[in-house]
């Protein structure tokens, strides 16, 4: 497995890009660790697939270099990069048996037969297709075929990286749970470098050690799932991670005092907002406490979604989402408190804080 260096990479699909707007991928300059599990997460059009294609060699970046363990591979074609890929839809040989589909990449590389057999059986076990080993792939269902694709991506252990492009899209919701935790276990066991593209937050957050959040051709934050949740560095991350996303309220900051509409809150520090044109307070719905004390709030709607309730309210003239546990009480004359440790202040969409 390999460390991946993304060295000042930019990419434009059109010729002769002049302004930042022309780049589908704005500057990416990062080093990804050997053995890391990275998820690229963002809405469609954010540049995540472009970045994956640059790593796999399907796309040559307009600028910058890509290195695997210090070796420049920028101009190497996909097949010379020693990577395994799993795509959104199954890519398998219909006329081969399930077993041979998995053995194929190993036989191609002249791996000894006993080693092939051991590895293929391990993978068959993992994707729960042991009983189907001798069946032709042709008659299988779409999600069984996709499981074979996944297995093929994982069967070699000598690749530099394994790249996944929305691999669980066609998989049944219940099977997703099983495969996700299998992937995670495998990663723990073998320490593969994995890059996983998805627009599904649960998939990204449960799979990765590091989630790379992309927005409008830029990486806006790379962090652990906990960091993205607790300290989103950009309001987009706050909005995109979490369901419902973070409440972002227009605010005014004076020293350690924040004003939202007619409400004033005290912070334990004075955020450095500089000369920002736009200041906002971010608070996640999970950290808004609904009770009989605190600031006035007007409840518009309560959505009972089974394991918790989502309360839609208006606070200081702004919409506010609040998460209440399954057995949580919603008082008639409700008031709210913001957990002080969970408040973030944003200046022109970027988080400022004690750390900044």
């Amino acid at each position: 497995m390999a460390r991946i260096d993304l060295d000042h990479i930019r990419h434009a699909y059109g010729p002769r890009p002049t302004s930042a707007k022309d780049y589908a991928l704005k500057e990416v300059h990062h080093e990804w660790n050997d053995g890391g599990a990275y998820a690229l997460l963002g809405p469609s059009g954010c540049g995540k697939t472009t970045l994956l294609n640059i790593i796999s060699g399907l796309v040559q970046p307009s600028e910058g270099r890509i290195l695997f363990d210090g070796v420049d591979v920028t101009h190497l074609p996909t097949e010379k990069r020693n990577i395994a890929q799993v795509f959104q839809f199954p890519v398998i040989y219909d006329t081969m048996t399930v077993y041979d589909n998995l053995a194929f990449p190993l036989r191609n590389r002249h791996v000894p037969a006993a080693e092939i057999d051991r590895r293929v059986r391990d993978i068959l076990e993992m994707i729960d297709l042991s009983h189907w080993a001798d069946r032709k792939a042709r008659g299988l269902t779409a999600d069984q075929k996709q499981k074979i694709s996944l297995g093929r991506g994982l069967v070699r252990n000598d690749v530099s990286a394994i790249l996944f492009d929305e691999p669980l899209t066609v998989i049944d919701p219940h099977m997703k749970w099983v495969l996700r935790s299998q992937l995670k276990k495998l990663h723990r066991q073998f320490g593969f470098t994995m890059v996983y593209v998805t627009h599904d937050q649960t998939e990204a957050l449960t799979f990765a050690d590091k989630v790379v959040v992309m927005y409008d051709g830029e990486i806006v934050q790379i962090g652990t799932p906990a960091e993205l949740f607790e300290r989103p560095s950009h309001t987009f991350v706050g909005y995109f991670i979490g369901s419902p996303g973070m409440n972002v309220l227009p605010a005014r900051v004076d020293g350690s005092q924040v004003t939202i509409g007619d409400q004033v809150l005290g912070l334990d520090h004075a955020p450095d907002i500089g000369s920002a044109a736009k200041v906002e307070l971010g608070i996640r719905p999970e950290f808004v406490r609904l009770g009989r004390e605190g600031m006035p709030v007007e409840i518009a709607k309560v959505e009972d979604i089974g394991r918790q309730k989502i309360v839609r309210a208006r606070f200081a003239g702004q919409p506010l989402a609040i998460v209440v546990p399954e057995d949580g009480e919603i008082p008639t004359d409700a008031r709210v408190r913001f957990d002080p440790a969970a408040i973030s202040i944003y200046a022109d969409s970027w988080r400022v804080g004690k750390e900044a």
Partner: protein
Amino acid sequence: MLELKNVSKTVGAEVHIHPCDLVLQRGTLNVLLGPTLSGKTSLMRLMAGLDKPSGGSIHFDGKDVTGLRVQERNVAMVYQQFINYPALSVYENIASPMRIAGKDAATIDREVRKAADLLKLTPYLERTPLNLSGGQQQRTALARAIVKNASLVLLDEPLANLDYKLREELREELPRLFAASGAIFVYATTEPSEALLLGGNTATLSQGRITQFGPTIEVYRRPVDLNTARTFADPPLNIIELTKRGGQFLRQDVEAFAVPAHLAHMADGPATIAFHPHHLALAPAAPGAQRVPVRTLISEITGSESFIHVDFAGVRWVMLEHGIHDIEPDRAIDIYLDTRHLMAFGPDGAAIAAAPAAAA
């Protein structure tokens, strides 16, 4: 009101829909929830008149419409794929059903603008669909279904191809649209969380059968059988085969946990016990919590929540905990099961009703 009376559909030797009865009221949102190939699309095609039932009859507002073709019914459909006229502007796309119906220009203009406003498409009316994002394209298709003023609107996984944030926004908008129009809305999905967010009523489907129909949250909380409970669970339901003996549930003759009050009336003998992952916890916070020893398998952290996979007496369970809990795999720990929410099923899979006084 749409009524399906003993409606079935067989194609060759294959049964697509087993005989079913269903009554949908005007002004309601009705979710068809089930995995792929459970019969959701087949049922919608029967409702629309795209297919003829093999048996039974379909009635609309009391009138038998069984043989009526889709063109003769007042039905609108929205599919998973975004279907618009690529050469027409968004405005003309939305206007098209009214032009076909021969409405006058002033009415068309008023209705298009109203629908565009409702679906936040006003800035894009002059664009063609291919210059829009997926979410805007699907909103265009939805707007067209709305202006058609159909009495039955069928939505077949309309949000499946969209980013989840767009889905979140549209899901919030949809119930509002439904409430405003007075039509019967039918919405097919494979995802339990989508059904819960939409609310309304839910019919669960499994292998061509409607297993239950009722208010969404009722079906979720009180499934009539194990199949329905399974269909309506994400994260997956935790299930275990136990034997009730007096006040205890036993697993292979070893005491697992005490029988909670709402199941005390159950007869002794084998039973299937099921519960949702959020009824397991690392700490004994809930009043009905009972300690269960487990072995940890793996934890998945989403930031706001952790999914901790554990093994209890050879059975794999998922625990959903708030916050971040990165637990070492393969360790023996004690966790707590809120037994007030246990569901019990008999050997035939039918739910064993909770004792009314003790119902959680």
